[in-house]
């Protein structure tokens, strides 16, 4: 009984918020131009579903392309950084410095280099999302129990053996944990770049709708972004739980 209620509660709350929103708009007669009511937004979704779907798809694959680059690059750099303490010490400040540059500032440069289009969006998604992957992979490697390393070294294990048998497998939960953060960031990066300069994508559609004063469509785009973001997060949260069950269970019984 209470468990079904618990399962339904996210949906109930979402529905409740929309209802409240609708009521506020009707009771206080809020101007559509300030805040369109959900009914108007859904109407816009119905009316413009084709451009919405097309652009949502562009945003989706731009995000995924940037994210894929970030995963590949992040894992490689993470392993390099986590491989030795010297590299870790040397590269870490450089990466912190790079990461603290607001990526909004980089988008115009990317547009100058690659022109208006999807390339800057993919690259922004990549640049904004690789950092947590690198940090997590490197942390997973660097936090290996020194005694376990001793056990293996006293068997004649080389650094590569230790990495393959222990280091890389044990970074798995760190890696998968970082993916759900990274996908969200990649999404933010892609949309940000689309709003600054692109000719497709939900971010682009939103800016266009805004300049035509089509507020319901602007909000329809926002709705689309929210749905897309939630789905991508949920997928990677599931992937994390699926592949790293042992990490959760073993940490729960660590005190054994």
């Amino acid at each position, binding site marked *: 009984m209470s468990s079904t209620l618990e399962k339904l509660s996210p949906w109930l709350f979402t529905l409740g918020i929309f209802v409240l929103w609708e009521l506020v708009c009707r009771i206080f007669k809020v101007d559509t131009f300030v805040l369109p009511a959900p009914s108007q937004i859904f109407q816009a979704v119905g009316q413009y579903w084709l451009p919405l779907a097309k652009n949502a798809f562009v945003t989706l694959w731009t995000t995924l392309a940037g994210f894929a680059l970030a995963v590949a690059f992040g894992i490689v750099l993470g392993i390099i950084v986590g491989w030795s303490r010297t590299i870790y010490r040397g590269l870490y400040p450089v990466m912190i410095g790079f990461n603290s540059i607001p990526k909004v500032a980089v988008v115009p440069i990317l547009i100058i280099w690659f022109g208006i289009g999807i390339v800057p969006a993919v690259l922004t998604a990549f640049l904004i999302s690789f950092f947590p992957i690198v940090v997590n992979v490197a942390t997973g490697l660097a936090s290996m129990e020194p005694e376990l390393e001793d056990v293996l070294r006293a068997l004649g294990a080389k650094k590569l053996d230790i990495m393959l048998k222990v280091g890389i497998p044990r970074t798995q939960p760190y890696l998968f944990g970082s993916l759900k953060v990274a996908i969200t960031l990649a999404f933010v990066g892609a949309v940000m770049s689309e709003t600054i300069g692109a000719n497709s994508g939900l971010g682009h559609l939103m800016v266009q709708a805004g300049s035509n004063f089509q507020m319901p469509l602007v909000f329809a785009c926002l709705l689309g972004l929210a749905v897309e973001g939630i789905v991508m997060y949920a997928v990677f949260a599931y992937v994390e739980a699926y592949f790293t069950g042992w990490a959760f269970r073993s940490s729960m019984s660590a005190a*054994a």
Partner: protein
Amino acid sequence: MASMTGSVDINHVTLTYRSAGGGVLALRDTSLNVPRGEFAAVVGPSGCGKSSLMKIVTGLVPPDSGDIVIFGDRVRGPVKIAGMAFQNPNLLPWRKVIDNVLLPLEIVEPHRRKFRRERQHYRDEAEALLKTVGLDGFSQRFPWELSGGMQQRVSLCRALIHQPALLMLDEPFAALDAFTREELWCVLRDLWQKLGFTVILVTHDLREAAFLADNIHVMSARPGHIVMTKTVDLPRPRDLDICFEPHFTAIVHELRAKIAEVRKP
């Protein structure tokens, strides 16, 4: 190939840890001899350099001066034959118990080369070893499904699966409750009597040392060196009841007095 006789010889070893704040002299002119097949225990106050001694013997850390000879071979880098176990079982949580036990065979030659081909043979050996430590039927479990004492048994199996000539144990039972600890003393005693390897056991539990060891080496406070070697002349095989005999108690008292003496600044 090492000769069948010989011993573990630690000759006048000194070790300093260098760090930004200056050096820490961990071991000073430490000498120790453990004949092949002997069960040796090293006891001493916390921080006296016992773990450092283990690292030196296994070649994981080079000494500043002095040398280590294991069964005739001088140690020049990480030795390739030692089994080690620590206070923390350090099992790999993504591997089943049996795959944790088999880990050394994926690394040590000549097993490493044959590992894929003779997988079944090795698995049978691991199962047999698990059985001797009382873990019959647990091989397909994951480490987190096991109690601390059982995990430590797995850790012992992992240290022994490649039949090392030398087993190094660094306070392996320190985190266990008293009953489990005594159970594991017996497990270790039986393994040692059956397989006949050489053991160096670091512990701060004097009863543990007296129950298990042939010779007990007492270390001074840092910088550590051996201040006394006590031969335990209790007959074997030893039973837990021996811990209540006056002679056993006398040995423990003597060790205790020595450690109290060396702990004074």
